[in-house]
């Protein structure tokens, strides 16, 4: 595992630009060869960092990360090394928290001090660093065994900020003078508005100390100065690279030409000294107004106040002084004129030369907006009086100019909304094409509906006559029912055209849906401001938009058990969308019962007379689970498993499938048996663990989209709204075309949200997809009351082919030996058989004890990794119990590798001190999320209430022992509901014994209280039955 780090290396001389330095920290000691014994630690002779990643490996890692500029690494990087002061333990630098070192227990040690280490890495020029770092997004934080360190993440945010400043043109040309008098042009950023200042101070505050650990002259010891240094270098390098070179044409170039050219080349300005002096003086006074605001700490602000209704027709533009770091602190001009001293004190703030400042700004502002000048003919102006037309011009033209000029502007909130609420727009009215008395089941995504447009102002419909009256006012802003609304000239023209033609027609339901969520464009040329549906459609749209709730259905009669209230709601929601043929994504947290909500839907369909089967596609690891859950909760459903080598592959499949209500198959087969599936007339297609189609290009993703059906459902436990390419792919399956093209979606939503945390895009996307996604969290207060404190579920896992073969071999061997033995010997054989078979069920490598590869060989291991992904996605923590410390180690290795996070393992060999440390670290917020405990070593008295998931990877056939373990997570202080997942390998002795315990629950305590001894008392026939592998669900892939 590698943690990538980065640090800014400021330039040491003025003619250099500085570099961004990237290095890697490995979990295993460096392979760079060293001879002899390592010298003693000393600050004066730094040693190479023992865990650093060599150049070549580092290049490879970065190339993997790079998604934009494949050529940065190959062409622009240079080998480099730096000295970094790192917290150091007795012998080596402390590992960064992002990394898991392979040599276990050093976390117990406390660092002794900050000691310099020599670190090799790569240097990248600032512009390339900006491209590389700004392309990192949340999605890249864990990637193929590589983690991005907090420092690099910090610089990534800084890079994004640099791009923001560049895109907003918040930079000015300046100069710096070197010691020998050479003058270099330098572009410098400027913090121009509230957002800039907020971003800057947020970054300065969040800078981790490691960022400033580089040992070098010129590293400022102040966060802000260091941040500033990077921003200036980055911005300067970007601009010099991006500006087209200014050619000098004239023979005797003037200072302007020389200056311009050097701004693009970065070369020193070569002119006579006295001209240079003139230039630098000129630049200084030219830029002075920018620095004024920074220095003074306050600025002039303008507040536009609408006329008070029925009292006045005039707007007021009032003048204030405003603290630049606290926009809410406003000193009215009235107060300013009252202060005779050089300094004004207001709410513990100091304003220097307030009158002159305000006057100078009013003088400048009057150039941008002449109405201000009129107000200046009084001795102590406090506001400008504006007509509605003038106020409109102010809003429309002056506001952006004022903002960019460094003035504060406070405008009424209705103007800012920018949406259609305060504008002339149209509302869309839709009604079903068919007779509204028809049953609602007739609608689908592609149904044709009728529509017409109505003109609206501020969301309220207006008649032609009303509209004409308003237009006759000839005002760009009109007050309608107390609200101000903008009436643009071009909109009036569009509206007149609209009244002439009168738009109505027919469209498809999905088009109407897109328009109703603000995704589509109206044909009128006016924004869509409202949406009305009548007839059956009104119910649909009201409910989709969440304005009215969905009718709660009663639990279907054939459902065995009782749905909890939120499950009833989920089931009703699924039924509602299913009736309209709209795709639904049920994304409840793991353990909330997505499976049974879907089963309830299927039972209801059957009760309503649906005869066609539904196809359920799921990962191989849960095929058995689905079968069993259906058996248990929905025995009325006829369920067919289409899986394994013995599956029906011929045309018989069609005639076979229609006899069932549900056909369970897998993602792999969705592609392989695509042709079989495509020919069946399905009622529905359901994807379980729908994150499996997150990559839209995979064959399985494409295959499932091609299977036609009346409705589609996706089930997933991962927070799909945060993984945008996954979201697109799932929505494309559910409601094809609804989110537009993948590329359009990427540019419009995925990049802005994932990389730049764009809030507007995020809100918009949420409103578009929310009708089709239902996600409830365990922690949701409305859910938590519905849930019991502890939910126990069995997780049925398959055996892999390898496991099955091993299992059968062990059984054969054991049965042979049992027959020829008795007494203590027989007992011993039975007990060892139990252990060996459990080992096989856990993992072949555990049974073989050969430290062979882990991935893909055990059904249980596959399943736990899948479930852990959801635990981590939910930001939750989990305990995993196993009886075998060998298995515990394998789990630790595997889970650490898969998730790139530290996994704790407490076993018999762990000292009391380390044990306490582990428990403490697990309890901390932000500590490791997965804690493996060997059941025997667990001991009593551990309080591990941070976990809300408990996994029993293998079974201790003794409910009391298991319960005691579970109770570690479920204790006083536990505020969350706890979910207990007991793993059982299907068709094996694990399942058989589990059934026996369940059957004899009442007796269980007595019979099996003493451990596993009772099993040895069974007859050979009974044992044969117990051990035999029922081979229905072996993984054959």
């Amino acid at each position, binding site marked *: 595992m590698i943690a990538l780090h980065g640090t800014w290396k400021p330039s040491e001389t003025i003619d250099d630009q500085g570099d961004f330095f990237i290095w890697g920290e490995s979990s295993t000691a460096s392979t760079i060869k060293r001879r002899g014994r390592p010298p003693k630690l000393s600050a004066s002779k730094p040693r190479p960092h023992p865990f650093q990643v060599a150049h070549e490996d580092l290049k490879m890692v970065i190339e993997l990360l790079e998604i934009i500029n494949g050529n940065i690494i190959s062409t622009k990087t240079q080998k480099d090394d730096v000295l970094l002061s790192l917290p150091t333990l007795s012998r080596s630098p402390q590992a960064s928290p992002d990394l898991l070192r392979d040599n276990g227990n050093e976390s117990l040690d406390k660092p002794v001090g900050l000691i310099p280490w020599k670190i090799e890495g790569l240097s990248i020029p600032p512009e390339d660093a900006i491209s590389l770092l700004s392309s990192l997004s949340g999605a890249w934080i864990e990637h193929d065994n590589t983690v991005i360190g907090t420092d690099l993440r910090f610089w990534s945010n800084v890079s994004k900020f640099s791009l923001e400043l560049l895109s907003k043109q918040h930079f000015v040309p300046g100069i710096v003078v070197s010691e020998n008098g050479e003058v270099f042009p330098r572009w410098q950023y400027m913090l121009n508005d509230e957002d800039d200042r907020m971003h800057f101070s947020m970054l300065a505050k969040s800078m*981790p100390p490691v960022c400033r650990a580089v040992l070098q002259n010129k590293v400022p010891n102040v966060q802000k100065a260091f941040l500033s240094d990077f921003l200036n270098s980055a911005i300067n390098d970007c601009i010099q690279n991006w500006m087209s070179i200014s050619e000098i044409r004239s023979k005797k170039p003037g200072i302007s030409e020389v200056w311009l050219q050097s701004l693009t080349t970065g070369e020193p300005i070569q002119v006579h000294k006295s001209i240079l002096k003139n230039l630098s003086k000129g630049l200084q006074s030219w830029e002075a107004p920018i620095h004024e605001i920074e220095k003074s700490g306050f600025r002039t602000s303008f507040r536009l106040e609408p006329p008070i209704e029925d009292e006045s027709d005039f707007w007021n533009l009032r003048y204030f002084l405003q603290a630049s770091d606290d926009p809410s602190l406003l000193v009215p001009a009235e107060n300013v*004129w009252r202060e005779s001293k050089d300094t004004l004190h207001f709410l513990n703030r100091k304003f220097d030369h307030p009158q002159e400042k305000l006057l100078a700004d009013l003088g400048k502002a009057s150039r941008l907006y002449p109405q201000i000048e009129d107000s200046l003919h009084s001795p102590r102006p406090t506001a400008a009086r504006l007509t509605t037309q003038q106020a409109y011009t102010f809003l429309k033209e002056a506001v952006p100019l004022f903002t960019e000029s460094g003035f504060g502007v406070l405008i009424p909130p209705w103007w800012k909304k920018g949406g259609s609420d305060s504008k002339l727009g149209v509302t869309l009215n839709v009604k079903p094409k068919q007779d509204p008395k028809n049953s609602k089941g007739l609608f689908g995504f592609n149904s044709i509906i009728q529509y017409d447009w109505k003109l609206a102002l501020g969301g309220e419909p207006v008649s032609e006559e009303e509209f004409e009256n308003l237009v006759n006012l000839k005002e760009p802003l009109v007050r309608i029912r107390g609200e101000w609304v903008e009436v643009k000239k071009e909109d009036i023209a569009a509206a007149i055209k609209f009244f002439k033609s009168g738009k109505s027609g027919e469209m498809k339901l999905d088009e109407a849906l897109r328009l109703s969520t603000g995704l589509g464009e109206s044909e009128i040329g006016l924004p869509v401001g409202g949406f009305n549906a009548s007839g059956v459609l009104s119910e649909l749209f009201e409910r989709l938009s969440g304005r009215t709730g969905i009718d709660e259905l009663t639990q279907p009669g054939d459902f065995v058990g009782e749905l909890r209230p939120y499950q009833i709601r989920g089931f009703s929601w699924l039924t509602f969308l299913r009736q309209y043929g709209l795709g639904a994504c049920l994304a409840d947290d793991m353990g909330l019962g997505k499976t049974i909500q879907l089963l309830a839907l299927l039972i209801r369909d059957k009760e309503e007379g649906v005869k066609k089967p539904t196809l359920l596609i799921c990962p191989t690891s849960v095929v058995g689970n689905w079968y069993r859950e259906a058996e248990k909760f929905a025995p009325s459903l006829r369920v067919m498993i289409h899986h394994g080598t013995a599956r029906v592959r011929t045309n018989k499949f069609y005639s076979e499938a229609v006899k069932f209500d549900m056909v369970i198959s897998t993602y792999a087969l969705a592609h392989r048996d695509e042709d079989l599936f495509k020919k069946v007339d399905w009622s529905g297609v359901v994807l379980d663990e729908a994150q499996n189609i997150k990559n839209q290009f995979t064959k399985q993703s494409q295959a499932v989209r091609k299977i036609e059906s009346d409705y589609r459902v996706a089930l997933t436990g991962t927070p799909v709204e945060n993984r945008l390419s996954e979201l697109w792919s799932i929505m494309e399956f559910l409601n094809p075309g609804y989110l537009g093209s993948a590329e359009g979606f990427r540019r419009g939503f995925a990049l*802005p949200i994932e990389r730049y945390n764009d809030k507007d895009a995020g809100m918009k996307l949420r409103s578009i997809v929310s009708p089709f996604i239902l996600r409830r969290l365990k922690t949701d207060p409305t859910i938590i009351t519905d849930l019991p404190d502890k939910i126990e579920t069995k997780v049925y896992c398959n055996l892999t082919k390898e496991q099955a073969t091993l299992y059968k071999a062990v059984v054969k061997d054991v049965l042979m030996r049992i027959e020829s033995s008795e007494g203590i010997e027989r007992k011993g054989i039975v007990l060892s058989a139990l252990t060996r078979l459990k080992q096989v069920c856990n993992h072949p490598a555990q049974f073989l004890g050969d430290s062979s590869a882990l991935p893909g060989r055990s059904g249980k291991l596959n399943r736990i990794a899948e479930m852990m992904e959801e635990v981590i996605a939910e930001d939750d923590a989990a305990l995993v119990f196993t009886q075998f410390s060998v298995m515990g180690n394998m789990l630790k290795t595997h889970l650490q590798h898969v998730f790139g996070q530290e996994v704790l393992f407490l076993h018999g060999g762990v000292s009391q001190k380390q044990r306490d440390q582990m428990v403490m670290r697990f309890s901390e917020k932000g500590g490791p999320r997965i804690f493996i405990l060997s059941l025997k070593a667990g001991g009593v008295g551990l309080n591990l209430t941070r976990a809300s998931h408990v996994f029993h990877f293998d079974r201790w056939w003794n409910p009391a022992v298991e319960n005691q373990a579970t109770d570690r997570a479920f204790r006083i202080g536990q505020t969350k509901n706890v979910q207990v997942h007991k793993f059982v390998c299907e068709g094996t002795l694990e399942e058989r014994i589990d059934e026996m315990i369940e059957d004899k629950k009442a007796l269980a305590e007595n019979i099996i209280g003493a451990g596993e001894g009772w099993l040895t008392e069974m007859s050979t026939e009974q044992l044969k039955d117990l051990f035999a592998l029922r081979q229905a669900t072996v993984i054959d892939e």
Partner: protein
Amino acid sequence: MAWRNDFWGGYAPSKPIEVEGGIKAKSKRGSIGDTWWSKRWVSVLESFGWSNRLDRGRRYARKGQVLDFELSTGKVEATVQGSVRKPYFVTIEIKPIAEGAWDHVIEEMSQKAIFAAKLLAGEMPDDIEDAFEAADVSLFPEKSKDIKTHCSCPDSANPCKHIAALYYILAEDFDRDPFMIFELRGRTKDDITAALRKQRTVDDESPPEPEALPAGEDAEEEEAALSMDDFWEAGESESFSVNISPPDVSAAVIKRLGTPQFWDSKENFVEKMGGYYEEISRRAIETAYGDQTGAKKRKK
């Protein structure tokens, strides 16, 4: 025209020593001075019948013969490079406006905030001369006798080209800072703003004493030593978000700051720079949302 000047001066043609780094007039042809008030300054001088002398000074000003100058209340001192090695010393003194009249002017100006507002924003108010007229004085000198000059050159004519050059250099400086004209007439910027403030301020009966500010509020940010405890930890940054898009107003800062004083190119500064600003903004957005596979164009 050259022969006429020579004839007028009575000297053999002499070339001034070329200067590098002198104060060069920005304007390359035509009149000097961009604003109405500097133009007015020049026309007042011309109205004294000095046109021919002034012409030669203008050429001097354009060549950068004025090495430096210093303005103090009522007086300007300068060095100007002529045709001999040693630069000449030039002084210009203007008759100050009487204190009483000044007070009257201030009184007049305090009636309209626009006077102070425009001046502080670097602009001479259009109707400034009305304020002076009300006090029966004139902002600009009314007759040649109001100006006393001296130059160390042997030319007996007044103004000589050295003095004239300084007149023009002053004109361009007035463009930048109109307060300089006031200073030449006896009151500095600080005098005027303070006097205006006094007039303007509404006397509150007894202004409340300001609360004492906590000490050290203005102190520079303290140096932050590297801390071992949270060495790798970043502060709150979850909510950090940026908006990478073009600004509402393109090249606003350039428009706001205007053309710098030293700009001597024929091209329009605001347009030229504005073009660069837009290009850079576009490139930043391209970098942020750029095509993943597209090869990057670089100029180097």
